């Protein structure tokens, strides 16, 4: 672990720890934009982490950026951090300069690519995108589209689009969009070599895997703490063996999610290896399901209410496991790829990923 990484970790822990108390999370869930938190993130160079230094960004490595993202999720930061990272990565790869402010990407759900056609020295973008994260709050949307077979990136001002507000289980904005707008030539460019809608989905899955790992590690902390404080039958419920075994499984699933998220981060850093990211999202999704269930069981009724913080985390886990491909989507890809490789190659593919 390098010194830069340690500094980044400390800074992110402090920043998100300070900015994500219960009141802030509740306000965001009610639709309020967390302006102060976002400003802090901008001032500390997190929002442009994946923009190269020569383009005015912090130029962090992908694994460092994903570490900061994981920490943001440890605090349920109600901001489009992952989406801004994805959009600035797409834009930078295409040589486009994204505006300041929160960004997001499309398509985010499914792989329907909005259509791009040439028009009057510029372009016309038309089509739909479902459940675009934080579209209503974004300064620009990096749309992964195509000119024929050529993957293109278009930077779109959401004010030019029709937006129908929606949300996920954690009340994070997930907005349906209709694109039908003219774009200047300077806002559209070829995507970086090798980047297409599938790559975007892979990177998105790597992001959500890291967010799940972060949120679940917090759920583990909260659950351990709660069971040590809650007294029944004259002793803290953490002293009951049945409870201890459940918490051991929560810890095991949290550890597995962290390891899987690391695997995804390595792959995203290196070559966007499909198998590694698919496995990571599958594994993290499963940890999210098992972990959230154990945490709620341990917390009893209070964890089920708005009085307690738990729901901010479990609602995100339940949403993130489905976003950018759920467990069955990615497991299907792995299974098909193994079947295609044939029994002789299954092991060597596992080792190579």
């Amino acid at each position, binding site marked *: 672990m390098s010194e830069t990484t340690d500094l980044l970790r400390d800074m992110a822990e402090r920043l998100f720890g300070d900015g994500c108390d219960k009141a802030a999370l509740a306000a965001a869930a009610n639709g309020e934009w967390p302006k102060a938190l976002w400003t802090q993130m901008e001032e500390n160079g997190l929002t442009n982490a994946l923009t190269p230094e020569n383009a005015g960004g912090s130029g962090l490595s992908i694994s460092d950026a994903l570490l900061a993202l994981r920490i943001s999720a440890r605090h349920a930061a109600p901001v489009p951090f992952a989406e801004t990272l994805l959009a600035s990565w797409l834009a930078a790869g295409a040589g486009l300069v994204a505006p300041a402010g929160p960004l997001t990407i499309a398509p985010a759900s499914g792989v329907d690519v909005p259509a791009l056609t040439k028009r009057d020295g510029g372009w016309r973008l038309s089509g739909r995108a479902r459940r675009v994260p934080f579209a209503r709050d974004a300064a620009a949307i990096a749309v992964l589209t195509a000119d024929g077979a050529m993957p293109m990136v278009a930077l779109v001002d959401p004010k030019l689009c029709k937006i129908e507000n929606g949300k996920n289980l954690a009340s994070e904005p997930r907005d349906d969009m209709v694109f039908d707008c003219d774009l200047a030539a300077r806002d559209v460019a070829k995507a970086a070599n090798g980047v297409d809608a599938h790559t975007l989905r892979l990177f998105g899955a790597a992001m959500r895997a890291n967010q799940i790992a972060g949120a679940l*590690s917090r759920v*583990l*902390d909260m659950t*351990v*703490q709660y*069971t*040590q404080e809650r007294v029944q039958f004259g002793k803290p419920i*953490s*002293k009951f*063996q049945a*409870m*201890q*075994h459940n*918490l*051991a*499984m929560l*810890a*095991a699933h*949290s*550890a*597995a999610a*962290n*390891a*899987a998220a*690391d*695997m995804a981060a*390595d792959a995203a850093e290196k070559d966007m290896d499909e*198998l*590694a990211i*698919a*496995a*990571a999202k*599958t*594994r993290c999704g*499963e940890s999210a399901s098992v972990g959230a269930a154990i945490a709620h069981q341990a917390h009893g009724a209070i964890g089920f209410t708005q009085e307690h913080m738990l729901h901010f985390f479990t609602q995100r886990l339940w949403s993130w496991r489905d976003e950018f491909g759920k*467990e*069955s989507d*990615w*497991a*299907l*890809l*792995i*299974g*098909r*790829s*193994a*079947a295609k490789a*044939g*029994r002789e190659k*299954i*092991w060597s593919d*596992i*080792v190579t*990923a």
Partner: protein
Amino acid sequence: MAQLNFAPPPPNTEATERLRGEVRGFLAKELAGMSAQKRASSWGGRDPDFSRKMAAQGWIGMTWPKKYGGHERTALERYVVLEEMLAAGAPVGAHWIADRQSAPSILRFGTEEQRQFFVPKIAKGECFFCIGMSEPDSGSDLAATRTRAVSVEGGFRVNGTKIWTSGANAAHYMILFCRTDQKGDDRHAGVSQFIVDMRTPGLTVRPIYDMSGYRQFNEVVFEDMFLPTSALLGNQGDGWKQVTSELAYERSGPDRFLSTFTLLIEGFGMLANRVDDRAAIALGRIIAHLMTLRRMSRSIAGMLQRGEDPATHAAVVKELGTSLEQEMVEVMRLLIDAEPDGSSNNPYIAVLAHTIMSAPSFSLRGGTREILRGMIARGLGLR
């Protein structure tokens, strides 16, 4: 509160991947014609000739000092050999325990004389070990051990019984865990380890056949067995500390999630080109779990190499790994239309039968599921 951090494992290098190629070449030749059912025995399969051939390649005692017959290679290189052996279903059982934990214990706690006597023989694949821990009245509760070694002139006199001892009939030596002092307030005090020659007078081995008819287990009885003082491993009274230090080796390796890999491979073979979406999802999920466990297990190999003590991490790998091994049986069973039959000529059907019958042992041997969960809970600060 302690989050369990699995540090990134050391990366593959040119050297590890060259080694992997050599191992695969060796296995293709040595295992040609071996039945799937035999492969399914995984590290339960014993073949002393195979062990000696592995040793000739320098693949036993890979990380030990050269002056004791080792090869001073990295933990990761050793890991490559182990995982390739297990994935291929090689019969590594004869030397497995000696390589995994007996020799490392002797190197760590043994006298110079013991190191020089035992470790080179183990590295040559000529000396196999078994573990004398469980007793009729002491299973998970290891500190309840009743086998006693009483000080006598020139050594110790041992009486008691060990049970469920895998490979006692084929091993040359046992590392015996027993009581050397009266049980006091501290249950973990007064226990010691000995290196016992299996030919010692007063030692008898009786077979115990498992439910498949295999001779996995043995009962080993000690009746006034004399051990010279030189048989003591480490310090008298340090047995508990020594035995727990073996556990991270015992619980974190690829043997804790690849025991049933042959079933997965034969399942793919049986489905051939009929892997529909339902099957692809079920099998892809298993592969995702294996990949994650492999990363965690390799991470522990790195921690062990750095001299850390990842006992709780190892408990997590074993618990998740053996749960996956057991679940895999159910996944395959529901996916493929066939009834298990050990006498079948169909490799999948025979391997399924074998695996169903051995699966209960996965979460018993090397520490039960309940003990491991307790250890993880302790790591969380709950007890």
